[in-house]
């Protein structure tokens, strides 16, 4: 397959999506879907990106639902920033129909080739509708948006849109709501603020928003101090069962909905639930459709503890009385089953629609607040997203990062907006390696130079495993030959491709080969694709290694898989070092080839049987001299006395959360309160070691750290469980991010910055505001030390969160 196709011609499916989609919709669905209990769902979710850089006014697509004989496409309510927002990322739900009876196509019957139908639908139906709406609007005298010109509308009309689709987790049918979407703002019961805010001009409004999993919105920690009312103004429970099966909804179902799946609970709803079920939070969540039911994926609120309960408690639990009217909560509770597949397949669409929802509801809260107080303030918004994945380009260009960043940048034009995310927990998981120039060894002078990675697949793994190999721009794939060798000795070889088309719109799968175990049995796939902005990637997808898989499917052999990268050239040495730029933009020699294994653990209630694969590197030193975990890379150039002669490819530095590398994200690491050192698992930015004491820091790193472990003997920090009265200790950087968000919200509350100050500080993510709260500057430490800036960021939060 070549990339010679010109945009606008009939799409080839391979250009419409990436290798994950290809795997998931071809082999992967037979392996992974049954465990995820979703193969019969007819509701697929996607995020589509318009590649030619065109931006479409969100107001034209808000809540849109379109259908033809084969396809139904339905968008959630979109934030429009009062008509100003033009976006390039479209979240939507899609159903396929077939036959005269319009039978719904279930997920397991959906194939990669069906993306062509989807593309055609957009090409023929969708853009026509948008253009029609635009015309109607301008004909009626309303400007579609201040900067939409006739020319860009014509672009829409001429179907020159080239789209790229991301496939995400299907929607559980019991949570789908097919009523038309109509936005509705309930009376939130805002009253004029009493003292100590007598002067309306001094009133500030802060909103702490959370996107998480298993959020007990009725918990006492999220009520006013007198326990009389909730502080949660809005909660979109994306995984709640919907009207047909939901007791509460039956009594109040109208003809429209504000959300396409799940249920929305606004403050009046929550207060009513609290009144009705005051003795019994079990019954409350049962009535709200949030407890486990047979035949549907299990729900986290049936358990005693959940991720979302703990994170929201850290973010906004037990808020002080003095400012409880001015600090509001918006929550989005993702469907927990979307997190069960840790490989990154799952959540983009859900997270993006969550962000739209939060921004939209923030506008509603702002209006109600201003009406009640006669003010004209903009809500200061802090969003906490304690999610992540290990793969991705790690430079802010992954699709979800770009989509969230685009929204944040838009809102920052007129209102303070911050996003906090955890740095990740994979520092010591052996999931990241970097192949440098020096790793390409030649056995003799004229031989091709080859670098080797050892990828160990655990036995009894019941989910697929993925390894991504990202090529830096200076090393095009045409210079590389990759060989994947199985533990049984069979080999799969692929040579990279030369591209004529260098345009950033040229994305998609360039080449693919089946990986065979012995006797020609397909157990995996090797793909070369071009991701956004033309970044090239080899992706290796391997089947589960467990025996007794569904329908007698073949298992990939477990053990050591060898991945060889060979530099091809008559004169291999002629290929220069891989150059890249460091954070401070001085030229860096040898950025290297970043290799990431996708996270693959059995998370939550999914019982998927996932087992993590990992890199094996005999150059890496796993324990330090004292017998503790070695927390530095084994590379000469760092701690030369210990690392003499070492050139490990395995890296701890560079394990940073692949979803948190956009410039507008505040990255939060975790540390141990008793020792003031980074928690051993807290991920960190990429480092490159040029020579002794000569280190370059690449890409996004930890900005600031908060406590995630009380001591070596008291793991985790205490926070709320799923019912009032339950407290649990939770470990991980997921608890650090909301602590920083909380402090940032408090600082925003008291800040007297002008609109200009806010806009100017946005570029540094309000760092100067963070400095005004109880932050301790990180002391000067040797590079990469567990108490250094490389692990902790520039500041640590000393005030620990206490439930």
């Amino acid at each position: 397959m070549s990339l010679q196709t010109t945009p606008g011609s009939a799409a080839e499916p391979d250009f419409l999506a990436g290798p994950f989609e290809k795997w998931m919709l071809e082999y992967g669905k037979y392996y992974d879907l049954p465990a995820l209990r979703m193969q019969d769902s007819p509701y697929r979710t996607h995020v589509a990106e318009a590649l030619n850089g065109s931006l479409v006014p969100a107001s034209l697509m808000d809540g849109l639902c379109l259908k033809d004989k084969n396809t139904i496409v339905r968008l959630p309510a979109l934030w429009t920033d009062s008509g100003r927002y033009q976006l390039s990322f479209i979240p939507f739900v899609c159903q396929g129909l077939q036959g005269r009876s319009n039978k719904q196509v279930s997920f397991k019957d959906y194939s990669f080739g069906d993306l062509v139908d989807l593309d055609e639908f957009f090409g023929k139906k969708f853009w026509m509708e948008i253009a029609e709406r635009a015309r109607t609007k301008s004909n009626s005298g309303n400007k579609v948006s201040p900067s939409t010109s006739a020319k860009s509308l014509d672009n829409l009309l001429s179907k020159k849109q080239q789209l790229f689709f991301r496939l995400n987790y299907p929607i559980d049918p019991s949570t789908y709501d097919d009523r038309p979407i109509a936005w509705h703002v309930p009376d939130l019961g805002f009253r004029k603020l009493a003292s100590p805010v007598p002067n309306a001009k001094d009133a500030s409004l802060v909103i702490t928003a959370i996107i998480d999993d298993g959020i007990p919105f009725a918990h006492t920690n999220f009520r006013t101090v007198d326990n009389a009312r909730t502080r949660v103004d809005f909660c979109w429970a994306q995984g709640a069962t919907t009207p047909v099966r939901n007791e509460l909804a039956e009594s109040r179902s109208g003809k429209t909905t504000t959300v396409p799946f799940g249920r929305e609970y606004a403050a009046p709803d929550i207060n009513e639930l609290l009144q009705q079920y005051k003795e019994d939070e079990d019954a409350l969540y049962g009535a709200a459709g949030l407890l486990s039911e047979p035949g549907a994926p299990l729900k986290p609120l049936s358990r005693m503890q959940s991720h979302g309960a703990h994170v929201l408690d850290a973010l906004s639990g037990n808020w002080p009385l003095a400012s409880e009217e001015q600090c509001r909560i918006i929550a989005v509770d993702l469907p927990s089953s979307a997190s069960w597949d840790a490989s990154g397949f799952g959540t983009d669409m859900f997270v993006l629609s969550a962000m739209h929802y939060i921004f939209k509801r923030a506008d509603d809260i702002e209006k109600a607040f201003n009406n009640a107080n006669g003010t004209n303030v903009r809500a200061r918004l802090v969003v906490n997203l304690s999610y992540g994945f290990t793969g991705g380009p790690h430079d802010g260009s992954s699709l979800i990062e770009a989509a969230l960043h685009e929204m944040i940048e838009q809102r920052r034009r007129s209102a303070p907006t911050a996003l906090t995310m955890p740095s990740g927990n994979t520092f010591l998981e052996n999931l990241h390696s970097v192949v440098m120039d020096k790793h390409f060894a030649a056995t003799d002078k004229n031989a091709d130079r080859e670098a080797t990675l050892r990828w160990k697949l655990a036995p009894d793994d019941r989910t697929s495993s993925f390894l991504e190999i990202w090529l830096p721009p200076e090393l095009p794939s045409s210079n590389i030959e990759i060989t994947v060798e199985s533990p049984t000795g069979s080999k799969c070889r692929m040579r990279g491709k030369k591209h004529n088309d260098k345009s950033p719109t040229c994305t998609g799968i360039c080449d693919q080969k089946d990986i065979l175990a012995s006797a020609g049995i397909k157990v995996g796939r090797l793909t070369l694709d071009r991701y956004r902005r033309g970044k090239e990637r080899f992706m290796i997808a391997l089947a589960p290694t467990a025996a007794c898989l569904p329908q007698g499917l073949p298992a990939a052999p477990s053990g050591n898989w060898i991945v060889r990268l060979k530099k091809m050239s008559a004169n291999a040495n002629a290929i220069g070092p891989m150059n890249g730029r460091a954070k401070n933009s001085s030229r860096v020699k040898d950025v290297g080839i970043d290799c990431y294994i996708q996270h693959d653990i059995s998370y939550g209630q999914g019982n998927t049987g996932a087992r993590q694969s990992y890199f094996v590197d005999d150059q890496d030193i796993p324990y330090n001299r004292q017998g503790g975990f070695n927390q530095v890379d084994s590379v000469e150039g760092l701690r030369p006395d210990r690392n003499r002669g070492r050139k490990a490819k395995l890296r701890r530095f560079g394990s940073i959360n692949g979803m948190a590398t956009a410039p507008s994200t505040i990255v939060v690491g975790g540390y141990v309160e008793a020792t003031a050192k980074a928690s051993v698992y807290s991920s960190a930015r990429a480092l490159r070691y040029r020579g002794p004491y000569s280190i370059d820091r690449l890409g996004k790193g930890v900005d600031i750290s908060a406590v995630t472990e009380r001591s070596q003997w008291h793991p985790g920090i205490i926070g709320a469980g799923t019912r009032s009265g339950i407290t649990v200790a939770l470990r991980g950087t997921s608890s650090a991010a909301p602590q920083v968000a909380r402090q940032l919200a408090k600082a925003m509350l008291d800040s007297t910055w002008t609109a200009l100050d806010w806009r100017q500080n946005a570029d540094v993510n309000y760092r100067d505001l963070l400095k005004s709260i109880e932050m301790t500057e990180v002391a000067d430490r040797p590079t990469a030390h567990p108490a250094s800036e490389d692990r902790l960021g520039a500041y640590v939060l000393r005030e620990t969160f206490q439930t």
Partner: protein
Amino acid sequence: MPLLGPFHASHASHASHASHASHASHASHASHASHASGGSSFSAYGSETGLQSSAQAIVHAAGFGEINNMRVKALKFSSSDNLSRWSVNIRRQIFVGEFLRNLDWEIESAKSILHMKWASMPFFKLKRPTARRFAQELPYVRDYADQRADRSAEILSQLDSITDYFAMVLGLTGSRNPFTLELIGLVSHLAGQAVMIPKHVMACRRPDELDGRLMPLIPTPGHSSFPSGHATQAAAVSTVLQSLLSQCPDHFPDHQERISLIKMMAHRIAVNRTVAGVHFPIDSWAGAFFGTKVGEIFTAAAGTKVGHISAACFEPSKTKGDFFFDDMHEAQKATTDQSSGGSPKSKMIKVDKSDELGWLWRNCIAEFAVGARRRRGQTS
């Protein structure tokens, strides 16, 4: 038999001393049932030997005459006042006998219906669920297994006794509330005994007999699944405790809240069995209904007030899938309501007072007497 040597034969009164000796040791091991038998006065304990040798040495000081039978005072014949003289274990056996003498049953084979009767009056009608119903409930049991990690400590400690859990809610201690602790153990025992008949009659297979994927947390007990014994016991204890508390509303400052906690605890104990994988939700439904009746009978027989209870009926088709606290609560309130499975015109069953059970009840009430106002003539 201690070796008392050649003098033993001439001291016939030693026989009574021998039993006195074992009785003395019994007083110090009041809760050990194994010492209940008057048994051999020869034992490994040094005290018996010491008691006997000192007995020999001093007996002469009591003279050699006959006991004056005019001075022998007898205990009251067949009086509950004497209960304080017996050990807890003996009392339990008496109470159990007292209860079981009135418990009877009747079977309608063709319809798979059992009538439990009290003093020949039917008070509980139980119909067996269909095989289809049990199969439909298997997904619940599978899904509840998700909570095994959360609840295994409770499940394992509730294998033999649920008393500690209710004691925790009411702040009971051995020194302050010996009778209430005895009450809880007794009611639990009675309910457990009573439910064995329906279990045997209904003869329903356990979840792990129908679905091999359940692999329960604990060994499946050796009796039928429906109704659930734990649900019966928990509901009976809950009913009795609620009744007890409602007669002492001033003892706790948070009286109503404790009653809520008792109900929730009973529910959780019942559901723990589903989590463990040894019961279907419908087992808990039926157990809760039946246990409530047992509790009501007990209260009526033992208490100072109600002498009648309403008959109830458990009709499987009238209950929804999962077993919920709120619904159980409703069911207990509306046992006469047809929609919850009761018969349309529920009969009221007369329950005669039992002196013996009343004795225990009065002693329990006395343990919650803080703040109680005594009115003239009021029995405590």
